């Protein structure tokens, strides 16, 4: 009712959104936004315009790809999973990696990882939103997934569990962001802790989506899940490395502690992640060459010396592993700029790695239909629509994060609680008591035909105590 008289001079009603007062009147909001854009430095305007352009192209591509526009994808029955699946995997694991890295500060309370707290949460929400957007475009009937996953669940499918974990993860992340800006430290603590647990479960399940497939020997195996979690960690750390370089360079809020604590901390994590992922990669390749199955050998060959070899050696190994490791190990490149290059390299490496993983798993055809066997390798190259969608998803993350950096207070919060397990222990205690009481009401008591009303303890030592009958302690 009051909005009718709202004007620029009188902001009218406002709502608190992520710690900021936001006017509810759309005209006021628009005017404020226009004024703010006018006040932006030129470089920021260009940056945002480029991102908006990329997002616009992606939006057009998404409209083209809406059902029944699937033919614009470059996939085929032999290579059913293409660049969109790769994009989904990359954004999803990056989300998890962000939480894994920052949990050292938010969950385990290590001081030098605290500066990651707010920035990682914003990035994680944006990345996961992008991941869900990409997968919705990849699915041919996305709405059916919502109905089907809830109304006819399929617990035997790793993909169903992945949906459960990533869906729950998104909820936790939203709670985390909300509690972070609305000063609910205990809720925040719990959300961070649970999100960190989910950050292990979710990419591991995503790895299992590939790992359970006996039909694709290059993917098959329990270590696919481990590799996926390690890649997630590395991707998250690398993205944080890029962002924190920007924070220090552009002297954003909290840059002193970021430069002093976060940059060296991230450098350490990046080094560890690169080594772990490198070892897992080497293991995978050696196992593939040593394997007896013809499919896995053909797939590994395709990566090492076949059509995927240039990307593997140049981007994955050279730019993605060797260069970051070198920059981290050499004393004179231990600078924020060195970290930036190392992070870009590592992130590119993980993205290319996931691309090679998905592509190589399908490159050795399982069927000889349509002369595919005569080809030797199953052909797939991403279509422009697929590329536009994935690039646009990345632009969305960058755009959203730039806005967050401009409008939100991303300094680390002052108050930090340790993990308070008291509520959990209460739950455990009560569950145990209830179970014991349940047992007590069913077990015949020796020498007592009827349940005792006086609350006297029974004779046998292992019989449950009668606390249920009496008053609580």
């Amino acid at each position, binding site marked *: 009712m009051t909005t009718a008289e709202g004007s620029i001079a009188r902001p009218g009603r406002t709502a608190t959104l992520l710690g900021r007062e936001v006017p509810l009147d759309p005209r006021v909001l628009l005017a404020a936004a226009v004024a703010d854009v006018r006040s932006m430095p030129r470089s920021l305007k260009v940056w945002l315009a480029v991102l908006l352009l990329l997002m616009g192209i992606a939006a057009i591509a998404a409209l083209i790809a809406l059902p029944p526009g699937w033919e614009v994808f470059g996939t085929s029955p032999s290579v059913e999973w293409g660049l969109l699946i790769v994009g989904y995997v990359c954004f999803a694991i990056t989300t998890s990696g962000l939480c894994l890295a920052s949990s050292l500060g938010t969950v385990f309370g290590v001081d030098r990882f605290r500066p990651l707290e707010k920035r990682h949460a914003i990035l994680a929400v944006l990345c996961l939103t992008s991941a869900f957007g990409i997968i919705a475009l990849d699915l041919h009937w996305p709405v059916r997934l919502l109905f*089907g996953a809830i109304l006819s669940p399929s617990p035997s499918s790793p993909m169903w569990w992945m949906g459960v974990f990533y869906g729950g993860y998104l909820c936790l992340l939203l709670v985390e962001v909300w509690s972070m800006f609305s000063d*609910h430290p*205990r809720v925040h603590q719990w959300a961070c802790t649970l999100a960190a647990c989910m950050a292990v479960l979710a990419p591991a399940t995503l790895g299992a989506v590939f790992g359970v497939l006996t039909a694709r020997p290059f993917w098959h195996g329990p270590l696919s899940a481990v590799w996926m979690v390690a890649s997630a960690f590395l991707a998250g750390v690398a993205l944080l490395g890029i962002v924190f370089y920007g924070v220090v360079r552009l002297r954003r809020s909290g840059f002193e502690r970021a430069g002093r604590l976060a940059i060296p901390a991230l450098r350490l994590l990046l080094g560890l992640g690169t080594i772990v992922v490198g070892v897992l990669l080497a293991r995978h390749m050696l196992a593939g060459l040593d394997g007896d199955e013809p499919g896995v050998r053909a797939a590994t060959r395709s990566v090492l010396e076949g059509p995927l070899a240039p990307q593997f050696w140049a981007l994955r190994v050279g730019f993605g592993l060797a260069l970051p490791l070198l920059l981290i190990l050499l004393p004179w490149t231990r600078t924020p700029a060195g970290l930036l290059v190392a992070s870009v390299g590592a992130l590119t490496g993980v993205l290319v790695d996931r691309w090679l993983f998905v592509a190589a798993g399908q490159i050795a055809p399982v069927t000889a239909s349509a002369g595919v066997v005569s080809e030797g390798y199953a052909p797939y190259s991403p279509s422009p629509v697929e590329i536009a969608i994935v690039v646009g998803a990345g632009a969305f993350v960058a755009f959203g994060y730039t806005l967050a950096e401009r409008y939100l207070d991303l300094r680390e919060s002052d108050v930090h609680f340790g993990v308070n397990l008291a*509520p959990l222990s209460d739950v455990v205690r*009560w569950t145990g008591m209830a179970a014991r009481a349940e047992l007590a009401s069913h077990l015949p008591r020796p020498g007592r035909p009827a349940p005792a009303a006086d609350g006297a303890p029974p004779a046998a030592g292992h019989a449950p105590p009668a606390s249920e*009958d009496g008053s609580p302690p």
Partner: protein
Amino acid sequence: MTRARARARLLRMRARRVWKRIRPRSRRSVAVLAVLAGGIALALLGAARLGPPIIAEYAFRPEANAATWRSQVPTYGDVAMCARCHEAQYARLTTATHAGIGCESCHGPLGQHALASPGTPEAEVAAAVPTDQVCASCHVPVTGRPAFVRQIVPPKHYVAACLACHDPHTGISNRPPVVEHTLDNLPPCITCHGAEGFKARNQRHPVVDSDDPTCLACHLPGRGPLPTESGPPDQRTGSR
């Protein structure tokens, strides 16, 4: 009764204690979240139970879907359906080398044709008349093709038009070539017929009296295989 009441009181007390642990300023948010979550759960359950069929029937029912698969109308019929009307062809099919081959292998899908009552448009749809291409799909040599199916090399075979000589229902060549020519003043037979084609064809035909020295080198007059095995059709057109 008192026991249940005590238990209820205990639960209430515990709930209150949990509620007290939540900071006063957070309580509203927690309550909103709880109501929201409960509402969504109720709405979903309610929709699945009572909602419009779109949602209510979603709960997966394989039997119903299997029934939709079963109700699909076949395009192809089967041999038994053809045999009901086309007895003569069926009888020939079952007696010779083409025995065991279904009608629709060569004639294409006939499900609608077979189900239609005589006189209706569907029944008038003529079955595809097989071409020589159909014969060639089985009877030309191809790497991997087992030898039990007779294989011919078309350029070396007598004429390219299969059905000019062969009854497709039996597979047997029931008459000699329609080309008739004298046997006098000709180059050696092999010049035109080729060794293989001549040989293959000749097995089913009487060796006739000839002055051709090339033939006589192997086939003395009257020495060739006689048409004793599969009946007399070869005799119909007499000697050449």
